[in-house]
């Protein structure tokens, strides 16, 4: 019998179609069809400036947009050779670890729900809310952040970030403990995941698997350890490994990784250099400042609109590289001084702005799913000549046909869930 699963099916979290050739309940053959979410990301990027294409990267892996931002931005920084201030590097680490946790939580929540554990789903969504609260306070939005910018980050952390981070960490720990209790020895969950969809180390490498899925086979590879970026080499964390490479190991590795991410965040809060600027500058109203700037240079601090909170001129040196060729000049300068206005125009004018030297570059970070890499070819203009994304789940999903062959239809669901397929990243 031929059975069509998807592209829009309640148990498929993402638009993907699987054609199954069945004998009873057993899968003889299958064919995975992707591309339903193809938006031409790479083509669009060739026609946007380096600064303007950042929001498109949010929409790749929409559960951990901050890591996508980071991967793209660090690729450009590798080309330009920019040094990022230390505080910004720590902020980046905190943000990417929070994203990793939210990514893993979402993946496991969906996987558990599809196996019937709805409580786990609700618990994990609850933990994710605490994490997204921190992300929302910091970046201003929950999902499409565009927060990590070339040269640093868009805004400084908010004053009470320690307390809310500690709260998020405590709540997540509690949820992780509960989930361990609910699932680790749960017969239903074990029957559907233990020794289901086993992949060997050789198989996983041949399919180009990276990230938690590769580590579930017991293979030690983590971009944060192999090619340390940011300040990961100054933080202590372990890389959890699985043993058998089945669905259950993929679940366990993700659970343990979240604990390590929490550890990293805790260390980062301790080690982050203090901001040298007063956090919210008291100052004159923007309209008054513009009025005053018509006659002479404004010396007093200017208060910005609330949606620019955290990116005042005084905090720029903590969060952005000191090079006005690559960063947007502070809004205070743009509106009240001619130099700032010129810098602003030079940055945004067509044909100007960020123009990396000619050449091509590959850079990767450890994303939620694995090695997230950007390959960018620059021809010296303000737009990339070619931009290619190494999407980790493209490689992982390509093994789905192999993994479900000879298994039952019911095994498709946890297998697919444990892969963490993200349509935006897979189809680009």
């Amino acid at each position, binding site marked *: 019998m031929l059975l069509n699963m998807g592209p829009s099916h309640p148990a498929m979290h993402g638009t993907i179609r699987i054609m199954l050739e069945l004998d009873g309940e057993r899968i003889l053959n299958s064919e995975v069809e*992707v*591309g339903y979410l*193809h938006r*031409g990301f*790479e*083509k*669009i990027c060739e*026609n946007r400036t380096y600064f303007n294409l950042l929001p498109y990267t949010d929409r790749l892996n929409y559960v951990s947009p901050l890591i996508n931002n980071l991967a793209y931005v660090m690729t450009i920084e*590798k*080309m330009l050779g920019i040094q990022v201030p230390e505080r910004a590097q720590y902020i980046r680490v905190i943000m990417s670890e929070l994203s990793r946790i939210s990514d893993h939580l979402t993946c496991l929540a969906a996987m558990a729900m599809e196996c019937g554990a709805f409580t786990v789903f609700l618990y994990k969504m609850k933990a994710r809310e605490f994490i997204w609260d921190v992300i929302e306070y910091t970046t201003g939005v929950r999902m499409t952040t565009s927060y990590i910018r070339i040269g640093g980050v868009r805004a400084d952390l908010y004053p009470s970030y320690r307390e809310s981070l500690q709260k998020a960490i405590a709540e997540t720990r509690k949820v992780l403990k509960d989930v361990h209790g609910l699932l680790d020895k749960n017969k239903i969950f074990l029957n559907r995941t233990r020794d289901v969809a086993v992949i060997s180390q050789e*198989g996983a*490498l*041949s*399919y*180009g698997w990276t990230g938690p899925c590769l580590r579930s086979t017991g293979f030690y*590879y983590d971009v944060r350890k*192999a*090619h340390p970026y940011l300040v990961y080499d100054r933080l202590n964390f372990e890389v959890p490994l699985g043993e058998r490479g089945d669905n259950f190991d993929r679940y366990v590795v993700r659970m343990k990784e979240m604990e390590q991410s929490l550890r990293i965040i805790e260390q980062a809060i301790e080690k982050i250099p203090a901001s040298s600027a007063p956090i919210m500058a008291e100052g004159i109203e923007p309209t008054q400042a513009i009025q005053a700037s018509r006659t002479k240079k404004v010396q007093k601090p200017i208060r910005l609109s609330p949606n620019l909170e955290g990116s005042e001129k005084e905090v720029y040196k903590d969060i952005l590289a000191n090079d006005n060729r690559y960063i947007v000049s502070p809004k205070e300068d743009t509106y009240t001084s001619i130099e700032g206005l010129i810098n602003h125009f030079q940055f945004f004018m067509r044909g100007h702005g960020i123009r990396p030297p000619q*050449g*091509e*570059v*590959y850079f*990767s970070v450890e994303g939620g799913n694995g*090695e997230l*890499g950007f*390959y960018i*070819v620059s021809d010296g203009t303000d737009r990339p*000549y*070619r931009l*290619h994304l*190494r999407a980790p789940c*493209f*490689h992982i999903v*390509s*093994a789905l046909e*192999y993994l479900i062959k000879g298994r039952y239809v019911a095994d498709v669901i946890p297998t697919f869930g444990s892969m963490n397929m993200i349509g935006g990243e897979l*189809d*680009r």
Partner: protein
Amino acid sequence: MAMEDKKILDELQKKFPGKILEVSEVFGDAVAVIEKDALSNIVKYLKNKPHEYSMLLDLTCVDYPERAERFEMVYHLFSFTQNRRLRIKARLPEKQPAIDSLTSLWSNANWLEREVYDMFGVHFHGHPDLRRIFMYDSFEGFPLRKDYPLRKRQPLIPLRK
């Protein structure tokens, strides 16, 4: 250039004389441009001991319409034992661009090559199932080629007015 990268590139030049067209270092990454016919031999050699570039990290293509050899295939290999990456490039002509498939060496080459075929129209010799992957079968043209207009629309079913 890092010592180890230089050693590998020198060794490749010795092992495959005339097949390595250029070696260079761009932004710290080692790059070798090779003759397209030698791809599978060179990659097979790199995959085995002593180098053990055992993972095909990425495979893509870049279109340079003004060049005589229009398409440039880009392969990123990764060696876990040495913890280093290597970029291999091969140039293909505009007329009937084709190169050997790597599906016999790496399973993920299957989908990656389908993607390049879909987006650039490059053929792969020995690929078991060379079909479009993202676009639908009746799609005309290759969207990531530079001469495909950005705003061209080919809806599979007519758009609602």
